[in-house]
């Protein structure tokens, strides 16, 4: 399972990439493997406020719908529109082209509570 070193992770299997003062969010390789076959993604609206640890998006596979929790509190400043026509990007490139949304970092200290790659890898038994 791929657990990139430069990302931060949640216990609920989201990843965060911090760049230009924003947090880009997606689901981990481990999560997409568990979900398999993503067929629909429901993203937050641009400008929506999201709260850390609150449901912010929904990723649906053939068999089940899974809530995606915002790793940090902020305002949605970007959403991955490519997922509308190609939700399987979440499976094929979960840490890259399959990203979900980006938010402002309203409480940067929340990043300290997230897991490092090593901690997340240990949690999923890698």
């Amino acid at each position, binding site marked *: 399972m791929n657990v990139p070193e430069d990302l931060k992770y949640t216990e609920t299997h989201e990843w965060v990439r911090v760049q230009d003062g924003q947090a880009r969010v997606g689901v981990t390789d481990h999560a997409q493997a568990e979900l398999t076959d993503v067929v629909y993604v429901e993203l937050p609206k641009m400008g929506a406020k999201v709260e850390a640890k609150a449901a912010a998006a*929904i990723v649906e596979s*053939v068999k089940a719908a899974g809530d995606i929790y915002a790793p940090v509190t902020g305002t949605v400043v970007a959403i991955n529109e490519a997922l*509308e026509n190609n939700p399987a990007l979440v499976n094929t490139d979960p840490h890259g082209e399959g990203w979900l949304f980006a938010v402002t970092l309203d409480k940067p200290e929340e990043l300290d509570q997230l897991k490092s790659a090593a901690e997340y890898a240990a949690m999923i038994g890698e």
Partner: protein
Amino acid sequence: MVDFGGWHMPVQYGGILEEHHAVRNTLGVFDISHMGEVFVSGPEAKIWLNEMLTNNVERLAPGECQYTFLLNEQGGVIDDLLVYLLEDARYLLVVNASHIDEDVAWLEAHRVPGVTIENHSDEFAGVAVQGPRAVQLFDHFFEGKISRPARNEIKRYDADCGTVWIARTGYTGEDGFELFFHAPCAVNIWNTILELGEPFGIKPCGLGARDTLRLEMCYPLNGSDLSPEHTPLEAGMSFFVDLGKPKFIGRAALAEQRQNGVPRRLVPFKMKGKTPPPRSHYGVFKNGALIAQTTSGTVSPTLGIGIGMAYVPTEFARIDEEIEIEIRGRRFPATIQKKPLHNKTA
């Protein structure tokens, strides 16, 4: 892995979509050991079974099977099953895993002298080989030792590990075979099928693909689309009910419905355009009013669109009728379709 009728079973081996497409395009194999195998025999078996089941077992020649229902007195479905006439006065009932105990208890409670009921579900395992290449696999597997059974036929094959029953049946809408055998045969048969199927790109398939495949064909799933609250006539299954028989459990309720019409009907629907996947227990709306709950739903891997089934009031049970499905508080347009949702072109 999930619990399914007390069995620990995989939802998927590789991925539901990949498994689904393998069955539609080439070949897939399912472990169906969870299904129940109940043998009914004796001089009174035929007459008694005809009073327990909706279809007419008198129409069966040895080696043939039919789809049928076990009903309660109100005409509601206890279980749907296949009944095979194996040989004179000996029947095999293949029933749903989640209903084995209930079915056997019901049958025992109504048993008469001259009828023997043997529940061999625990000793039997089974596999379903499904897909356009299933006949080729059959030929490689049996190497001419037996000929292929015809559609809805069953044949007996005596292997070293015990008797293997081979039926030309399935739950996917594709051609294929279901094999029932004693558990000690299971590992060898499963591995041989995977090995011989490899050139065809065979995939082991889990419950997830089994569900998407059967739903595209509008085959009902007991516990979802069938229940004690609905009759086979409401489920659109009158072809498997012989009201010409003078007596069977549930007949009076069904005859009344035949006379006066059914209040609701199980219909398939298709979402219009891209929507979240419909799933079971979602609200169905017509003209702003809640008219039903979905009983099944998924994204059809073949059609690439949301599909499902629901019992709607008969006045709305028309092809092309516009309805709405409520998904997480939002309503999305759908239309009622004719069965099946997937039409084989081959």
